[in-house]
C-alpha cells in the first residue's frame, strides 16, 4: 500500500466524516424515512470507508486483493445510486398524482433508451478488455455514469418542462449526484481512451474533490429549511370555476 500526502488523506477521510454527520442529520430531521435509499447509501458509504481504512492499515493484504474488494464495494455503491435516482424521480412526481403515470413511463423509457445508448457508445469506444479491472473501468463504470447522468438530465428537463417545484433534499441529491456522475464519466472516458494510469494522481484528486463537493451539497440541502410560498384557499371559488368552465366550453365547441 502506498503512502499519500495530507490532501489525499483529507479528501479520502473528510467526505466520509461529513457523510456520517449527514446520516445523523437525516435521522434527526426524520428524512431517513422519506429517503430510505439515500439514507442507505450514506450509511453504506460510511461502512465502506471504515472497511477500506481497516484494510489499508492491515499489512497482510495485497494491492490486487484490495482492488477486488474495492470493485465489489463500487458495484454496490452504483446500485444504490440507481435506487437514489429512482427515489428522487418518485419524490418529484409524488406531489403531482395526475402526472405520476407520465413520470413512470418517462423513467422507464428514459432508462431503456439510456441503456441502449450506453451499450452502443461503449461498444464503439472500448478497445481494452484484458482483466476485470479494465472491464470495470471501461464498461460498467461508464455505463453506470451514462445512465445515471442521462436520467438526471431527463429529471431536471422534465421538472422544468412541467414547472414542478423541488423539495430541498431532492434537489440537493439530484444536483450532487449529477455533478459526481458527470465528472466520473469524463474521468472514466479519459482513462478508457488513454489507459487507467493516465494522469492518475490528478484524476484521483479531481474525483475525490468532486465527491467532497457533492457531500457538502447534500449536507447543505438536508440542513436548509424548506421555503414555502403563501397560499390562500380563498383563491379557488367553485361557483366561479363552474361558470367560467361553461363559458369556455361554449366558445370551444361552437
Amino acid at each position, binding site marked *: 500500500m502506498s503512502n499519500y500526502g495530507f490532501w489525499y488523506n483529507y479528501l479520502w477521510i473528510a467526505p466520509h466524516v461529513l457523510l456520517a454527520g449527514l446520516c445523523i442529520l437525516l435521522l434527526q430531521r426524520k428524512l431517513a424515512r422519506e429517503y430510505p435509499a439515500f439514507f442507505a447509501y450514506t450509511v453504506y458509504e460510511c461502512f465502506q470507508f471504515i472497511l477500506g481504512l481497516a484494510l489499508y492499515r492491515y499489512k497482510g493484504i495485497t494491492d490486487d486483493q484490495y482492488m477486488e474488494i474495492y470493485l465489489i464495494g463500487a458495484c454496490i455503491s452504483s446500485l444504490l445510486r440507481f435506487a437514489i435516482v429512482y427515489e428522487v424521480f418518485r419524490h418529484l412526481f409524488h406531489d403531482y398524482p395526475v402526472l405520476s403515470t407520465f413520470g413512470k413511463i418517462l423513467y422507464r423509457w428514459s432508462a431503456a433508451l439510456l441503456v441502449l445508448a450506453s451499450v452502443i457508445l461503449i461498444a464503439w469506444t472500448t478497445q481494452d478488455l484484458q482483466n476485470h479491472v479494465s472491464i470495470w473501468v471501461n464498461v460498467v463504470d461508464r455505463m453506470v455514469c451514462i445512465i445515471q447522468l442521462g436520467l438526471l438530465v431527463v429529471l*431536471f428537463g422534465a421538472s422544468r418542462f412541467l414547472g414542478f417545484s423541488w423539495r430541498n433534499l431532492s434537489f440537493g441529491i439530484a444536483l450532487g449526484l449529477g455533478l459526481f456522475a458527470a465528472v466520473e464519466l469524463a474521468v472514466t*472516458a479519459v482513462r478508457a481512451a488513454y489507459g487507467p494510469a493516465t494522469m492518475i494522481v490528478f484524476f484521483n484528486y479531481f474525483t475525490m474533490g468532486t465527491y467532497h463537493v457533492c457531500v457538502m451539497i447534500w449536507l447543505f440541502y438536508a440542513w436548509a429549511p424548506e421555503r414555502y*410560498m403563501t397560499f390562500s*384557499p380563498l383563491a379557488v371559488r367553485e361557483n*366561479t370555476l363552474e361558470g367560467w368552465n361553461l363559458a369556455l366550453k361554449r*366558445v*370551444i365547441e361552437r
Partner: protein
Amino acid sequence: MNAGLILVVCAILALGFLSWMAWKTRSRRNLRDLYDIDLQAFENLACADEEKFLRTRLRGGEFRRIQRERLRATMEYVSGIAHNAEVLLQMGSSALRDSDPAVANAAKHVVDEASKLRLNAQVARVKLLTAMLWPGIRIEPSGVLEPYRKLKSIAAVLEVANSHLGTVHVA
C-alpha cells in the same frame, strides 16, 4: 474525432445543462405574478373556421405570412397560460403540507389542475412551434385546439387567481 473525447464533451455538456437547470429552478422559486389572459382573443386566434376562411381567401405566400403572425400571437397566449400554470403549481405545492386541511385540500385541487394545464400548454407550444416552422401545412384543429380544450377545467382557477393576485398583461 477521438471516441473518448466525445464522452468527455457529453459529460461537460450534461454538467452545463444540469447547472443551468439548477440555477433556473432556484431562480423561479419566487414566481408570483400571473399574466392576464384574454381568452376571447385567444379563442379567435385558435379558431379553425377563421383559418379555413383565410386559407381560401388568401394567396399561398400571403396566407403563410398571416398564419405565421397568428401563430406567433397564439404562442404568446399559450406561453402566458404555461407561466400561470407554473406559478399556481409553485403555490399549490408549497401549501400541500399545510397544517390547515382546508388549505391543503385547496392546494391539492390547484396542483392537480395546474399540472394538467402545464403539460397541455407545453404540448400545445410544441405543436404551435411546428406549425410556425411550416405554416403552409394544414394543422387540424385537434392539433392545437385539443390540448387547449383540456385546459378548460383549470382556466377558472387561473381566472379567479388572477383577480386575487397582481396581474401582468400579455403583450
